[in-house]
């Protein structure tokens, strides 16, 4: 299936058919943005413009939604997104120290990406593993009861991933 639009960004067939399926359903915007982020990893400006065009809604409306919710990203994250849980239990048990240590090891700040594009650090809302606090999540892997000493090893394990 090919759809010709003015905005130059390639959407995969599955993304286009998903948008097609949801086009006329009520409350579709957030669901479509989730799908865009799932495929591209974030919501680049061009993708937002293309969604605006396909759904025939103003770009401002899309940005209104994207910037309101924490989950949507406007910048490309690292290949490995290191998410440090900042729920209450993790905070009490030293989540902040883990962020500090990660920043030192990787030489980047929160919400920044390393030069080689491999890692980015994020502070996230409670991931619901409070019994394992403090927790970090990389991709689908959850690391519990993490100590500062373990961080270099954990990062090394993901360096080639």
């Amino acid at each position: 299936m090919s759809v010709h639009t003015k905005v130059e960004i390639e959407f995969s067939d599955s993304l286009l058919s998903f948008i097609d399926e949801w086009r006329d359903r009520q409350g579709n915007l957030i669901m479509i943005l989730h799908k865009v982020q799932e495929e591209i990893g974030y919501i680049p400006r061009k993708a937002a413009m293309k969604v605006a065009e396909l759904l025939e809604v103003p770009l401002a409306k899309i940005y209104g939604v994207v910037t309101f919710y924490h989950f949507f990203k406007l910048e490309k994250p690292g290949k490995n997104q290191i998410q440090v849980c900042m729920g209450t239990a993790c905070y009490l048990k030293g989540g902040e120290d883990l962020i500090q240590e990660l920043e030192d090891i990787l030489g980047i700040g929160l919400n920044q990406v390393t030069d080689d594009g491999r890692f980015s650090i994020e502070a996230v809302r409670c991931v619901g593993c409070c019994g394992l606090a403090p927790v970090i999540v990389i991709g689908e892997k959850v690391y519990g009861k993490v100590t500062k000493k373990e961080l270099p090893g954990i990062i090394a394990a993901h360096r080639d991933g």
Partner: protein
Amino acid sequence: MAYKHYILVCGGVECDSNKGDDLFRKLIHAVEHRGLMADIQVVKSGCFGFCAVGPVVKILPDETFYVEVTPEDAEEIVEAHIVKGKPVERLRYREEESKVNVRIKDLSFYQKQFRIVLRNCGAINPEEITEYIARDGYLALEKVLFEMTPDDVIEEMKKSGLRGRGGAGFPTWRKWEFSRVVDEKQKYVVCNADEGDPGAYMDRSVLEGDPHSVLESMAIAGHTVGANQGYIYIRAEYPLAIDRLNRAIDQAKELGLLGDNILGTDFSFDIELRLGAGAFVCGEETALLASVEGKRGMPVPRPPFPAVKGLWGKPTVINNVETWANIPVIITRGGDWFAKIGTEGSTGTKVFALTGRIQNSGLVEVPMGTTLRDIIYNIGGGVPGGKKFKAVQTGGPSGGVITEEYLDTPIDYDQLGKLGSIMGSGGMIIMDESDCMVDVSKFYLEFTVDESCGKCAPCRIGGKTLFNILDKISKGNGEMEDIAKMKRIGHAMQRVSLCGLGQTAPNPILSTLRYFGEEYRQHIEEKKCPAGKCKSLISYEIIEDKCIGCGVCARACPVGCISGERRMPHLINQVECIKCGECYNVCKFNAVAVG
């Protein structure tokens, strides 16, 4: 066909991410390898709740409880326990060194619990609808469709006294009744599964461990109020729960328990998922509905209440996951039965996520009216590491703290309110002497400031001002009049904020001021943080008499600011010190003091 043995592996996120999935596969392999598939079923079930000792494995029918099991233990469990009938002693959970608990229900972690909401979590395979049905699943829906009128259902709900478990505790039957009496063709039923309270994960466990209980209840509500469409608004951060729900919806449709003409009647009801995208304010009903509609999640003033004018302007019943999970039991066993559990004003049970400085962290479900002491000490096993209990925080960023002297209060909606806290969604975070109350308040305010939608001034400006004052106090620049100022702003926010987020945002400050005013005073007047948490107010010093000059601290110091000759007392350069506390942590002679 009945199996001789069942091996249940906890499929909760905590166990699963701790090599639980690998263990599950190895157990299946061990069973298949021995050709025992006909006799033994290996099941990955929902969360057992005892997250502190995961991964957990339960063997039935003998109810053996194995904890901290690794994938390498799989062979031994199958060979020794199943084949030879000798349980693997070293993996069994022991309450005390000498005592081995034989049956799961005898464990003190479970003994004081009473499971209604979590009745199926850890008991069934959540990916098989037949297992839910085998435990009386969809019986309540059948009863509602064939034996009860909508009036009967409302009456039963009324008798049960069930109140909303999302936080505010509004009587569920009244929401339903408001919707039911509106004369409108299109109505909706919504499940709030956007669990946003940091430190609470009971909804996640119910959705992952027993998704059908929510679907069944939503259909019951649909039939009662006259709605044909339901939406589950769920956090995108819960992929496993989303997957299980989708699977459950498909299976229910296949069996005619959802979709068109349910069980051959003229009642049709469909359920779709809508993903949240990380906004705490969406816990507010009107904001949640805006988000389901695909818009920014901004609240609007009530009334009109969603029950009358909600999703796309139509009457909408919204309940939270835990509330929904109670309903099938109320219908099958009756409202009177349910009302006998708990206290007069708060019937039934409540699930708490017991976390923080606690021995047995995990999910616990207890009858309303259980004391905090019972939960923290008898179920939770108390504060570990010989530290002293300081406070328990309930209700998350909207709640407050409760101190030692009130631990014997029976907990229900009203009692917690009297103590200046709230039930909230059920987060229960234990704090010990190493936790600073100013710091904790600052943590919560930072959260609510970040999550404020910015629509109304009291929340947008008041919250930020409160945060700034706390920040100032934690850095040693506070003044005594700041306390009166925080109270003034806090009370104003409670009265005039547009929605629950702003109205409750000052609670962590007001409640810590009430019980720990002295700690605030020490920060302000003495420039001291007694818990040693506020970095601007502490310093690390080496006690000369105790230091033997081993040099461990100097090697551990990340900025190299500790110096000294070997076998001579060392010294910390206070100017360069970043107060990371590494020296304090590594010293074996207690020669580093925090002041």
